[in-house]
C-alpha cells in the first residue's frame, strides 16, 4: 500500500512540473488566442541564457534578472514583428508563426551559447525525504511550492486587476477589444513577457533536473495532455490537469505497464485526456464554446 502512495505522491509532484510548463501555454492562449508552439523553445532559451551567464561567472540573482530581461525583449520583438502583422488572421496561421519562432529561438540560443549540456545547480538538494516509509523528493516539493505560488499570483492578476480584465477581453475578441480602446499591442507584449517569465522558472526547475540541453524543448510535449484535460484557457485547469496527468501516468506505468509490456507513459496521458474530452469537449475548466448558426 505504501508503494502505491509513493507512486501516487511522486506522480502528483511530477504533474506539478508539467503544469508549470502548461501555465505558459494557458497565459498566451487565454490572452491572444494563439497556441504558442514556441513555449518549449522559450523554456530552453531562458534556461540556456541563465546557465550561460552563470557559467560566465555572474551571480545567480543577476543572471536571473538578465534572463528575465532577455525574455521580455523577446516578447516585445515577437509582438512587434510577428503578432502585430498577423492580427485577426486564422488561428492556424498564428500557430504556424509560433513554429517559425521556435526555430529562430532554438537557433539563436544555441548559436550564442553553444550546443553543450550544462548543469544547473539551484542549491536544492535532490535527496529523498522519508515520511512514514514513503519516499518524497525535496526537489519536487520545492517545485510544487513554486508552481503553487505562481498560480496564486497569476489567478489574482487575472481576476482582480484591470490589466487582467483587459487580457480576458482581448482573448474573447480582438476587434471588439480594440474598438473599446484596449491597447492590444501592449497587452500582448505583457502577456508574452509573463509567459516568458513562467518559461524561465520552468526552465530553471527542469534544467536543474535534466541539465540544460536541447531536450528541454521537448518538455512542452508533456504539457499538452495537461492542456487538453484542464482546458486551454484555465490557469486552475493547468494545475488540476497537471496533477491528474502526472499521477495517472505514473500509476498506470507501474501497475498497468507490466501487463502490456511497459513503456506506456508516452501515450497513456493522451488516451486518458482523449477519453475525458469525449465527456467534456472543452476540457475540465475550459471555456465552453457556444456555437451559433
Amino acid at each position, binding site marked *: 500500500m505504501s508503494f502505491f502512495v509513493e507512486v501516487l505522491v511522486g506522480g502528483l509532484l511530477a504533474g506539478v512540473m508539467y503544469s508549470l510548463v502548461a501555465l505558459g501555454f494557458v497565459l498566451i492562449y487565454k490572452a491572444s488566442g494563439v497556441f504558442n508552439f514556441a513555449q518549449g523553445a522559450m523554456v530552453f532559451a531562458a534556461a540556456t541564457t541563465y546557465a550561460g551567464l552563470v557559467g560566465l561567472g555572474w551571480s545567480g540573482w543577476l543572471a536571473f534578472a538578465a534572463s528575465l530581461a532577455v525574455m521580455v525583449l523577446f516578447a516585445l520583438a515577437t509582438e512587434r514583428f510577428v503578432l502585430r502583422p498577423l492580427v485577426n488572421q486564422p488561428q492556424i496561421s498564428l500557430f504556424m508563426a509560433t513554429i517559425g519562432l521556435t526555430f529562430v529561438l532554438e537557433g539563436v540560443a544555441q548559436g550564442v551559447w553553444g550546443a553543450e549540456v550544462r548543469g544547473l545547480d539551484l542549491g536544492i538538494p535532490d535527496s*529523498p525525504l522519508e515520511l512514514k516509509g514513503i*519516499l518524497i*523528493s525535496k526537489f519536487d516539493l520545492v517545485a510544487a511550492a513554486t508552481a503553487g505560488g505562481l498560480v496564486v499570483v497569476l489567478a489574482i492578476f487575472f481576476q482582480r486587476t484591470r490589466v487582467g480584465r483587459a487580457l480576458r477581453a482581448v482573448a474573447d475578441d480582438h476587434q471588439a477589444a480594440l474598438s473599446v480602446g484596449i491597447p492590444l499591442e501592449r497587452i500582448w507584449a505583457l502577456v508574452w513577457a509573463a509567459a516568458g517569465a513562467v518559461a524561465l522558472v520552468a526552465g530553471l526547475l527542469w534544467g536543474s533536473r535534466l541539465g540544460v*540541453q*536541447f531536450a528541454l524543448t521537448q518538455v512542452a510535449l508533456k504539457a499538452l495532455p495537461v492542456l487538453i484535460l484542464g482546458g486551454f484557457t484555465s490557469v486552475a485547469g493547468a494545475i488540476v490537469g497537471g496533477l491528474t496527468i502526472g499521477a495517472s501516468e505514473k500509476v498506470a*506505468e*507501474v501497475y498497468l505497464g507490466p501487463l502490456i509490456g511497459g513503456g506506456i507513459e*508516452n501515450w497513456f496521458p493522451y488516451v486518458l485526456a482523449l477519453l475525458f474530452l469525449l465527456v467534456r469537449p472543452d476540457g475540465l475548466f475550459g471555456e465552453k464554446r457556444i456555437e451559433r448558426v
Partner: protein
Amino acid sequence: MRTRTRGWSEAAALLVALGLSAPAIAQNEQFIPMPSYRQGPYAAGGTSIYGGFIDYLNLLNMRDGGLNGVKLTWEECETEYKPDRGVECYERLKGKGPTGASVFNFLSTGITYAVIGKATQDKIPLLTMAYGRTDASDGRVFPYVFPMLTNYWSLNTDIVRFIGQKEGGMDKLKGKKIVHLYLGVAYGKEPNAIFQKQAEKYGFEAKLVEVPAPGTEQQAQWLEIRQYKPDWVILTGFGVMTPASLKGAARVGFPMDHIVGNFWSGSEEDTEPVGAAAKGYISAALNPPGKDIKVIQEIERVVYAAGKGNMVNKARIGSVFYNRGVLTGIMTVEGIRVAQGKFGKKPLTGEQVRWGLENIKIDDARLTQLGAPGFIQPLKVSCADHEAGGAVKFQQWDGTKWKIISDWIQADKSLVRPMIEESAMKYAKENNITPRDCSKEG
C-alpha cells in the same frame, strides 16, 4: 506547382555539379565525407566527436603533410541525426573529391540502416564504429559495413563480465538480480536478447525496464527498481535519458557504483548536470578519456597552438566524446593507410578503402607508432569478422572527471558470434544476398 520544385532541383543539381568540378584542380587529395550533427538533441556529443575527428585530420595534414603525402580533405553536412537528412548528405557527398568519398561514418544507427543498401551498391564502405547494425559484424553478408571495435551485443557481455568480476567471479552471479534500464528505441532494445541469454547461462535474474523516449521522466521506472531491489542496473541510454536516470537513482537512493552504463551513456555531458550526486557511476569506455595520451597532446601542440583547433570550448579537449572523435579519425585513416599499402600512395576509391578497412591490424607496436598506447584495443579485422574487437575498458566518475578502473575486458564471443551469424543469414535470405566465401578472398 511542379515548375517551382523543378527550379529548385535543377538549380541544386547545377550548383552541385559546379561544386564537384572545383576540386578536380587539386589532385593529390583523399576526400573524407563528414556528415555531422551539430544541431538537435545530440548536438553536444556531436560537437565534441566531430571536433576530435577534424582535429586529428588537421594534425596529420599539418604535422605530417597528410597521409604519405596525400592531403586529407573533408566536408561537413548537417544531418540532425535524421535518416532522411542523412540520405541527402550521403548522396551529396559521395562523389566529391578526385576519387569519390572514401568512407562514411554517420554516428547514427538509423541513418546507417537507411544507407546500407545504397552504399553497398555504390561501393563505398560504412565505418559504423561502436554502433549500427550489430549483425553487420558478419562481413560475409555485409562486405561494406564495419561495426568496428565493439558492437552492442559484445558490449553487453563485457558489462556482465565486469559485473561478475566485481562480484568475485562469474559463478557468484547466480541468484543475483540485474536490471536492464533502456531507452525505448531501436538502439536501447538491441542488447535485450543477449542479456536474457546470459541470464540463462549464468543464472542471474534479468529484468527489463523500458524508458519511453526521450527519457525525461523516469520516476515510475526508478520506483519500480527500488521495489525490485536489484544488485546491479545496466543503463543503455543516450542524450537526456542518462542524466535523468542518474537523478532518478539518486532520488530513490540507489547506489551509483552499482549502475553500469554503456559507452554512449558515459560522458561528461551525462554526469556534469548531475554533479556530485553521480559520484561512483561506472560506465563502459570504448576509449580512455583524458589528455595524458600522446596523440591528444600532439593535437594540442600542433593544431591548437596554430589556432586551427575545431573545438570552441577547449575545456572539452580530452573529454570522452572528444577522444572518441580522435579514435574515429585514427581508425578511418588507418583503413586508408592500409589500403595505400596495397594500391599505392595516391587518392583511393571507396572500394580500395574498403579493402584497407578489412585488413586493419592493430597491435601494441602500431599503437605506439600512432601515439596511442592503451587507447585502442588490439584488433585484427578480417573478411568474416568486421567487428574485430569486442572489448571495452571501464571508467568511473569521481565527481569531476572520468577515471579508468579496469583493463580491456573481452567479450563472450562464443555467445555473441552465433547470434550475429543467425541474424545476418536471415537478412541475407530476406534480401537475396549470397554471402561471400572468405576463404576465396585475399
